[in-house]
């Protein structure tokens, strides 16, 4: 990670150490003072950055593709580097506020915790300065292309912002005067739109806002060459020449995301979304797996619902049948033991009836006699 710091002395010793290590500079003795680090830093890193700067800007662009990306990195890098530099100088309150912006659960910033939180903030700030990841790469390369095409409308929105995570939006906004962080589709002519699947055509690259001073110029030549072939599928014309670092990841990522897409002449390509369950093409079964599909299943389900009560019904039926059998057999006078009981009972009833009748007759004579 290149750090373009005016005064390395502003960096902490640890930071200097990591910077030197990044530049493959042999570190001084562990107990050497910060001055040694600063000295080494100035000597090596500054020299290196000087070379980068020199090969910058106008003419060098075509041949030094690497420097191009360096420059673009520098743009974003400088801003974040400044921030990184300042992390050590933030007050406790500011440091805590910045960490809270990133959603970090920050505890008290005391002596023992301060370095840890500074380190954490640096890590959080880092992705913005490192274009190898998709987002900033997009920004840089689009910003480069901005200047190129004057004949086409300049007022193109950049929906690539939607592609990136929030962290990259800062880089976008630096370069983008129009400030579009909107997500969405825009179809503005043949080769100039961002389908939702983020497969921008090469023409799209030209439709950037006209900012991006240093970065853009060098790419002009290349872009003009590519204009003729603009209609060709996304990224094939521009890619690897001037922005290898950014282009490759861009196309790779797009291709990874949508490996099946074929380059189309207009650059338009729509990727089918995964079909919604229950929509056409997907049987309802998947959406409502519990719904019975055939009448047989329906019946089975109905039966199952009645399964439990069925046994009870059978029991009741058997009981009733048995009772009826007993009664019937009693009527028939079948000399079985159950019937014998019934006969016996009926005999008892006969006796009772006889008693009653005798009682009745005994009752009568007094009455009769009384009357006479």
């Amino acid at each position, binding site marked *: 990670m290149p750090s373009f710091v005016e005064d390395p002395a502003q960096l902490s010793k640890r930071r200097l150490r990591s910077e030197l290590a990044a530049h493959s500079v042999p570190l001084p003795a562990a107990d050497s003072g910060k001055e040694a680090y600063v000295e080494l830093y100035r000597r090596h890193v500054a020299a290196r950055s000087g070379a980068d700067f020199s090969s910058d800007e106008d003419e060098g662009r075509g041949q030094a593709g690497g420097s191009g990306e360096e420059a673009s990195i520098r743009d974003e890098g400088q801003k974040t580097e400044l921030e990184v530099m300042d992390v050590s100088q933030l007050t406790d309150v500011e440091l805590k506020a910045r960490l809270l912006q990133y959603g970090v659960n920050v505890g008290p910033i005391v002596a023992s915790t301060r370095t*840890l939180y500074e380190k954490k903030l640096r890590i959080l700030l880092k992705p913005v300065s490192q274009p190898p990841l998709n987002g900033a790469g997009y920004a840089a390369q689009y910003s480069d292309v901005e200047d190129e095409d004057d004949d086409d409308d300049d007022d193109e929105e950049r929906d690539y912002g939607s592609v990136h995570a929030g962290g990259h939006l800062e880089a976008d906004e630096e370069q983008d005067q129009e400030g579009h962080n909107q997500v969405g589709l825009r179809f503005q002519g043949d080769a100039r739109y961002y389908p939702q699947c983020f497969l921008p055509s090469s023409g799209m690259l030209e439709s950037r806002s006209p900012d991006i001073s240093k970065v853009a110029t060098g790419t002009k030549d290349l872009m003009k060459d590519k204009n003729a072939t603009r209609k060709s599928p996304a990224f094939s014309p521009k890619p690897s020449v001037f922005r290898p670092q950014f282009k490759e990841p861009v196309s790779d990522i797009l291709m990874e995301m949508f490996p099946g897409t074929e380059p189309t002449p207009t650059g338009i390509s729509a990727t089918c979304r995964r079909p919604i369950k229950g929509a056409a093409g997907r049987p309802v079964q998947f959406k409502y797996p519990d719904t019975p599909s055939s009448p047989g299943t329906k019946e089975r389900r109905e039966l199952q619902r009645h399964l439990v009560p069925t046994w009870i019904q059978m029991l009741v039926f058997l009981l009733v049948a048995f009772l009826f059998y007993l009664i019937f057999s009693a009527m028939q006078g079948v000399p079985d033991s159950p019937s014998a009981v019934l006969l016996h009972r009926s005999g008892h009833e006969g006796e009772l009836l006889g008693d009653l009748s005798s009682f009745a007759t005994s009752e009568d004579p007094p009455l009769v006699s009384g009357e006479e």
Partner: protein
Amino acid sequence: MLTTSQKHRDFVAEPMAEKPVTALAGIGDVLGKKLEELGFDKAYVVLGQFLVLKKDVELFTEWLKDICGANSRQAASCTQCLKEWCDAFL
């Protein structure tokens, strides 16, 4: 950490009271000595640092690695030990 050491289990089983810092899981003699030199002579002082970092496992692991040169395994072990202790007693 699916398996815990005996040291871990011993530490988490009871309040740490005045246990030395070497009683922490993952902290042996060498690391214990370094921590003591830095002023973390008792386990509760290390606990204090853990709490000041709001029991953030990541931050504490990093801190431990920075301060006494623990490797990832040792630091993770110690962090896990402290975290479980806090869950049990704090």
